């Protein structure tokens, strides 16, 4: 009797995992079935259009790339600097502890709240308008907690002996960090950055809230240009009643997923190299 309950439990638990797998498979197959027919070079290189069969995603893809590149340029130095402070300088100070708790809390704030923050601070208070810059600043704040956490982990794996060797040769604290610790931690930091960016590139709600446009027939030509991004374009197409636009949405999703897959592959590649380095 006991054995039978044990077996039943095992079946139930395995079933749960299988349901999760099936859902993932259904999602991918559904999007493939709906959207693969629309994918073409023309779809990738055409601008938005009111006619679904002419519409492409070039403007949205360009917008996503613009926003993500600037987000990375902002989040990387700020995140790494904050992580270095918390890990190397502020250990045990009360301020550092407070900052840590604060970062953990920020990581769990809904992304749409960041959108309201961006709308209030970047778009209106700083007068950036509904530009690529405002979007990137908003996403950078959103990405920071993850960049900080992963950088701290990467710093922690750097062996103590490297630091001590550097100090023994008379290097200052910053010289040690800049010339010895950071180079070793780079792959780990980059892995974390890419993972946080792959989350940022799929973000929709905060960018809608700061007022990224949903219909825009041109690609951004600078950081102050209005813009849209892939997920917003997908959302716009999903919200239209015509079936042809839903096809476009599915094709757009395929492009987005392909982009994510490439970013994650890069992260896995880096992590692999990092681990091999650490072992040798």
């Amino acid at each position: 009797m006991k054995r039978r309950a044990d077996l039943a439990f095992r079946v139930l638990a395995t079933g749960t995992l299988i349901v999760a797998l099936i859902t993932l498979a259904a999602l991918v197959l559904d999007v493939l079935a709906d959207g693969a027919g629309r994918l073409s070079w023309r779809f990738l290189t055409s601008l938005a259009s009111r006619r679904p069969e002419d519409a492409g995603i070039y403007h949205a893809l360009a917008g996503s790339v613009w926003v993500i590149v600037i987000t990375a340029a902002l989040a990387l130095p700020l995140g790494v600097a904050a992580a270095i402070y918390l890990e190397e300088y502020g250990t045990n100070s009360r301020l550092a502890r407070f900052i840590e708790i604060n970062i953990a809390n920020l990581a769990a704030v809904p992304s749409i709240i960041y959108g309201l923050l961006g709308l209030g601070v970047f778009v209106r208070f700083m007068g950036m308008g509904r530009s690529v810059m405002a979007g990137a600043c908003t996403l950078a704040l959103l990405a920071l907690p993850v960049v900080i956490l992963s950088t701290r982990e990467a710093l922690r794996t750097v062996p103590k002996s490297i630091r001590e060797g550097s100090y023994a040769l008379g290097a200052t604290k910053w010289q040690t960090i800049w010339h010895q610790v950071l180079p070793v931690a780079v792959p780990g930091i980059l892995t974390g950055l890419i993972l946080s960016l792959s989350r940022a590139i799929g973000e929709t709600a905060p960018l809608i809230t700061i007022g990224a446009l949903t219909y825009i027939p041109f690609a951004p030509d600078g950081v102050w240009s209005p813009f849209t991004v892939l997920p917003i374009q997908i959302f716009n197409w999903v919200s239209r009643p015509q079936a042809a636009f839903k096809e476009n949405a599915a094709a757009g999703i395929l492009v987005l997923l392909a982009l994510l897959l490439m970013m994650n592959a890069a992260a896995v590649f880096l992590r692999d190299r990092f681990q091999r380095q650490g072992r040798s």
Partner: protein
Amino acid sequence: MRPRRLERVIELALLLSAVLSVLTTAGIIIVLAVETFEFLRAVPLVEFLTGTEWTPLFASPRFGVLPLIAGTVLVSAIAMAVALPMGLLSAIYLSEYAPEPLRRVVKPVLEILAGVPTVVYGYFALMFVTPLLQRVFPQMAGFNALSPGIVMGIMILPLVSSLAEDAMRAVPSGLREGAYALGATKMQTALQVVVPAALSGITAAFILAVSRAVGETMIVAIAAGQQPRLTASPFVPLETMTAYIVQVSLGDTPQGTLEYRTIFAVGMLLFLMTFALNLASTWLRERFREEYS
């Protein structure tokens, strides 16, 4: 002397970067508080919190937020009804049963599930799950709470599973061995020893998952509709707090108007709800860590 000063300047710059996170929190609170204050000067707090009609964009606007809260709670409850049992089961399985090779396959799959953009889940809910459910429940509308709720549950499942698993793996193996020595089966050990021992960690995972569900936006904005409605029926269109913010942001409501301020007032409410949940979760996790260190 010169390098010394440089060291100080660098340390200060690093400190400022770290303080940016505190400024972010302060910025969120200030932006939300200022606009909410302006909003409450026009709409009494009691009317806002207890009103049962939410029609801020109508000619004769009503500002009762309860329908939006009800919509948020309903969808989140459905999501948790999916994510809690499934997440806990898979966590128990991964922590207590699964052989190492299986774990190495399953964990990345769960990570992928957590990494899919929410707009994609929204499409999936609207175009795949809703039509599927309509075959079972013919009375169900094209926009509803059930389909986005279920999909959101699947999306949150990896979060529940990995945090709960971490909590269970932190339980000292001595407790398990004691149970086995008393003749308990694997299931009895898992359910009656490991899960109770990890309970505060598991609860922390659940609370964090609720917070995620409450703040989730795109799935509900796409698949739940845009009709604020005080209902417990999972079959009719409704609107959540997050979906309302998206709806107004998409429109061309002029800045500085009362309608425009509603999104900050709703945002404030959303922030307070999730903030309270996050604090509770952090507190429980800390307590759990103390128990086994």
